[in-house]
């Protein structure tokens, strides 16, 4: 099949090439030498790489939890609406259709410490001016919030579909038996929704690990290196320092990490939902 050929060209070749080049010492435009696994050892010992790994994990954990809580709450709330449910769903999907660079532009405009509407809003209710993206202590939290604005709709829409597909009988039986709405949620909704929840968390986790555009477009990894994710790190190493080998080494290590995360989720899923 031609599809297989194209796949070979566009995904196996680069992966193999990355693995191969990660064993060399190569700066763009220069000759290269074989250095074995020393790139791996240097990188694992590098403070900045470890910071980038840590930042990526913090971002992923933060964004996925915030989006999950908001998305689940919203899905439950919207499922109870009798008027305007379809409209609300359509409107809530809008942020998902905005590209990452434009998300960055929007939030830079809104969060500007002196000119932004959010600063104005905070001041008018008597709160102090805040640095948001420019404040090393707040930048990561701010980026997590931006991602939550952008991607909560994903969690919402998938969980909404999951809720709609739940069987009605257990809920009717529970109501007859006098279960409170919290009990119905805790003992019926959550267990029945578990496979859907895991699928949502898997997709969001894997996607968050790859975070690039909303960091590149807002802070560029700063202030200092407080928001530098692995992909932002790899971009800088490759295209600013022109150190192709180290960048490829980074991506080999990181891809293995991402793959392990994916496998961990696959283990949690019920067998019929697994693909590996």
């Amino acid at each position, binding site marked *: 099949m031609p599809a297989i050929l194209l796949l070979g060209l566009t995904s196996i070749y680069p992966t193999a090439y990355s693995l191969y080049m990660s064993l060399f010492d190569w700066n763009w435009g220069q000759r290269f030498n074989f250095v074995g696994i020393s790139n791996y050892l240097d990188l694992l010992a590098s403070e900045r790489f470890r910071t980038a790994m840590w930042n990526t994990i913090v971002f992923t954990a933060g964004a996925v939890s915030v989006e999950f809580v908001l998305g689940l709450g919203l899905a439950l709330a919207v499922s109870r609406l009798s008027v305007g449910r379809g409209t609300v769903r359509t409107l809530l999907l809008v942020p998902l259709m905005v*590209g990452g660079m434009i998300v960055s532009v929007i939030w830079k405009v809104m969060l500007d410490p002196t000119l932004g509407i959010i600063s104005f809003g905070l001041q008018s209710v008597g709160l102090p001016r805040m640095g948001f993206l420019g404040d090393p202590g707040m930048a990561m939290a701010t980026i997590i919030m931006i991602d939550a604005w952008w991607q909560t709709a994903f969690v919402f829409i998938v969980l909404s579909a999951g809720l709609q597909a739940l069987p009605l009988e257990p809920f009717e039986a529970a109501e007859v038996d006098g279960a409170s709405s919290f009990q119905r949620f805790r003992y019926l909704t959550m267990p029945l929704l578990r496979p859907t929840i895991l699928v949502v968390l898997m997709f969001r986790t894997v996607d968050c690990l790859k975070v690039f555009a909303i960091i590149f477009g807002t802070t560029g990894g700063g202030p200092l290196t407080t928001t530098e994710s692995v992909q932002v790190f790899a*971009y800088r190493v490759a295209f600013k320092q022109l150190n192709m080998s180290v960048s490829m080494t980074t991506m080999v290590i990181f891809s293995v990490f991402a*793959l392990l995360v994916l496998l961990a989720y696959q283990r949690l899923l019920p067998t019929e939902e697994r693909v590996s």
Partner: protein
Amino acid sequence: MRRRRFRPGILVAYAVATVATLASLFPLYWLFVISTKVPRDAFKTPPDLLYVPDFSKYLQIWTTAGFAGAYLNSIVVVLSGVALALLVATPAAYALVRFRVRGGRWLRLWLLLAYTTPEFLFVIPMYVLYQSVGLYDSTIGLAVIYQVFAIPFAVWLIQSFLGEVPRELADAARVDGATELQTLLRVYLPLAAPGLAATAILVGVNMWNEVTIALSLTFDNAKTVQVAVAGFRGYAAIRWQEMAAAAVAAVVPMIVFAGIAQRFIVKGLTFGAVK
């Protein structure tokens, strides 16, 4: 259905839905507001709630910072990328459905791996390759590299749509002497046309919004709209109004397309893991 009784919870649900909708839409509304205010008023505090909108920036952006060229590049990348993906994916999906190739599991695995792979794993090797074969900074180069994601996604989505066509129709066509190609073109494609259109839209929106690869594999000639919007930074100061107008111009078509394909979005988002 559960019995409908009035519960205070319903009020909370409406309140939550309203707040969430406003929070989702306000940033985009504000972007539009900034783009239609004159520089003097755009960041005035407190902001003017009523003002005479100034749409001049929507004309200016097309002649500055190479934005029109970038917009055109994105259209070329999306159209050629979508065409390529559908051209490869449709026969593959057809083979999967017609000949009951047991590829469903492998297809899902392939999809999931393509989704998981961080872009830079193949962006940097492709940068090296494209530099040497002359595809660097070209729209066709971008359209090709996007196939890494587009093909598995399109194959999966199309086979799910083709699978809904009754097999009897295809068997009847074969008995009447139609070739496999004719069966695909005359029986399957007309029936699955809405699904194919939705696939094209979802693949196209993803390509239009892609940043990481576009940023790394283009410089100036093939710069895409996402990259160009950020280019309104200028040397002296950020030109907020132009930047906002450009962002609005880049977002609106996607929202329209998404509205058209809305029915299929959930399916497209999770590769059918949730029906």
